[in-house]
């Protein structure tokens, strides 16, 4: 019989086997990149799918000791964190309005944001570039952050609105009976209740910003302002001779996003499960 409360029981071998196969497929290419960084170019040309022999640490060490790498990580972190905070805060506020207020323009406002999903960055890049330049934000991280917040709002709103809608009216009524205003209700009750949704959208926003390539490519011209994907591509073409080096740089640049996700993974699923289990 299913449904016991045991949390640590082992699953069937079949499940683990299938999971193992799937994970192997998922991680295979990643491992190729990571392990490739431990080889040198002649190894790669001679035996493309082979293992390092000998293992060489200098590619990774070169990257880890290069100040450019850490600078780019710093830039990427600043941009991604600020974008995430901006998207989440602004998105939560607007979603609250869309979910719990009734007013005539509500459908139009929702459609406005939903329409933003339809436009990829490639389309808007040239006029956007001109706008950023006119605001004097060229070659600054703010010039990347602000548009990213804008482009990140549609997905956030689409996810948060149903979430906020689902908060039963009784809570709101109870709060208002207790004398709290709408805004008070927002800050004191909605925000804590929406944490799981916020975490999900925050992660999506963070990952999207971290991996964003096209916008920084056109806004950031100074190498010291580069974010990590720009740095990877620049490194890849600058040292394209040195495939092993490129692989090392590439694999190191995957790590921060992975750490971020690992840290918050429990919260996502935990948050969703918690809502059901009580």
């Amino acid at each position: 019989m299913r449904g016991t409360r045991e949390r640590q029981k082992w699953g069937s071998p079949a499940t683990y086997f299938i999971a193992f196969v799937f994970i192997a497929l998922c991680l295979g290419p990643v491992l190729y990149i990571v392990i490739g960084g431990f080889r040198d170019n002649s190894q790669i040309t001679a035996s493309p799918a082979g293992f390092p022999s000998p293992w060489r640490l200098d590619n990774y060490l070169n990257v880890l000791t290069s100040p450019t790498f850490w600078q780019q990580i710093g830039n990427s972190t600043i941009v991604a964190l600020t974008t995430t905070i901006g998207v989440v805060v602004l998105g939560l506020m607007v979603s609250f309005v869309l979910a719990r207020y009734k007013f005539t323009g509500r459908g139009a406002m929702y459609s406005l944001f939903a329409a933003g999903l339809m436009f990829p960055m490639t389309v808007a890049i040239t006029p956007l570039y001109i706008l950023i330049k006119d605001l004097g934000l060229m070659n600054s991280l703010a010039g990347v952050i602000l548009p990213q917040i804008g482009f990140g709002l549609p997905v956030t709103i689409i996810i948060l609105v149903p979430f906020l809608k689902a908060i039963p009216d009784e809570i709101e009524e109870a709060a208002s009976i207790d004398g709290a205003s709408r805004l008070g209700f927002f800050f004191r009750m909605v925000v804590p209740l929406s944490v799981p949704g916020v975490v999900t959208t925050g992660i999506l926003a963070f990952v999207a910003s971290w991996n964003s390539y096209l916008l920084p490519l056109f806004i950031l011209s100074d190498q010291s302002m580069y974010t990590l994907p720009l740095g990877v591509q620049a490194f890849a073409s600058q040292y394209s001779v040195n495939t092993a080096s490129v692989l090392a740089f590439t694999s190191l640049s995957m790590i921060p996003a992975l750490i971020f996700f690992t840290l918050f993974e429990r919260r996502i699923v935990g948050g969703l499960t918690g809502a059901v289990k009580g």
Partner: protein
Amino acid sequence: MKRKDRIAGILALAVGTALLASGCASGGDSSSDGDVAMTFWQNSTTGEGKAYWEKTVADFEAANPTVTITMQSIQNEEMDGKLQTALNSGDAPDIFMARGGGKLADVVAAGQAMDITDSIDSATKAAVPEGVLSAFEVDGKIYGMPTAVLPGGIFYSKDLFAAAGIDAVPTTIDELNTAVDKLKAADIAPIAVGAKDAWPAAHWYYFFALRACSQATMTAAAQSMTFDDPCWLTASEQMEEFVKTEPFNAGFLTTSAQQGAGSSAGLLANHKAAMELMGAWDPGVIASLTPDQKPLPDLGWFSFPEMSDGAGSAGAMMGGVDGFTCSAQAPKKECTDFLNFIVQKDQQEGYANAFHTLPANTDAQGVVTDPALQSILTAYGDAPYVTVWLDTLFGQNVGNALNTGVVDLLAGKAGAADIISAVNAAAAKG
């Protein structure tokens, strides 16, 4: 309610429009107190080339203490896109790489390039031939300074030719076909081509066109952007024939031109392929991709084979001219000073050595020792005329369509006539 949101929206739109309208005119970089700052974009991201530019900039700054130049190295394949965006938004670098032809004409038409006709100093005029300077001429005025002449032809590995039993360099297309067969028999990839970047593949078409079309036809086509002269189709068909013999390296469609050991230059550098049709920059690129990062010792060069009964003159050459242009908003004196500076004999000798290529300054050409380059110099001197690459000549729009059309033919996706229809169609899009 709804109205407040509408008002907020309209305000945002208004603010945005106002900003855009007011910001359309952009100012230059020079300040009024005498100190001048300029930005400089070039396409050497690594090695000796980048080092050469860094030294050149430093030398210029030393000679001109009030001037500071910030240099940006941009990968060659990304240069066009980034430059396009920068020029488009009025945020152009003061000094940027240019190659003349239709691409430059577009920039000039938009008023983004500086006319330097009167600022070329006499030393430059004496040392750089008229024909080379004219690559940067638009409507009778000069808009850029050439730094390198880059005629094209076939680079080959003497060792691999010897291994396949080829004694003499091919001078006709039939001899080339024979050479290809011998190389295949010796299990060597005959010709490397970086079709992923499109232009290396297209260069094969350009040369067939050079042999099939007269100089007058090509110039006329550049003006009218129509390709009705039958010589274009003939060139296409001749290339199709050649491609049918399967002379290219395996996976050539995803081989890049210059990036990494798997690129076409890399294949030559590592003796994995015997020939490559390229411009005079190739010795330098190959040198950076060899295992010891030194120039390939057995690299040779021969002119593109002659075709029988083509309208092109025998010995005609096609090549690029690399150079630099000043942006229209750049500080005139300092910018033209820089252009004149980089084309001086000393600088050009350094350039030739760093890039293993041919400098535009004829006095500096004496330092060229690479045997392949020397062959080119000889052929260049003997050539009745030299045209610029067709994609440069025709401008980015038609040039790109031409390049892509050629790749389609190489992939067997299109026929000889489709190249012609592709370029005609492109002319309509822009």
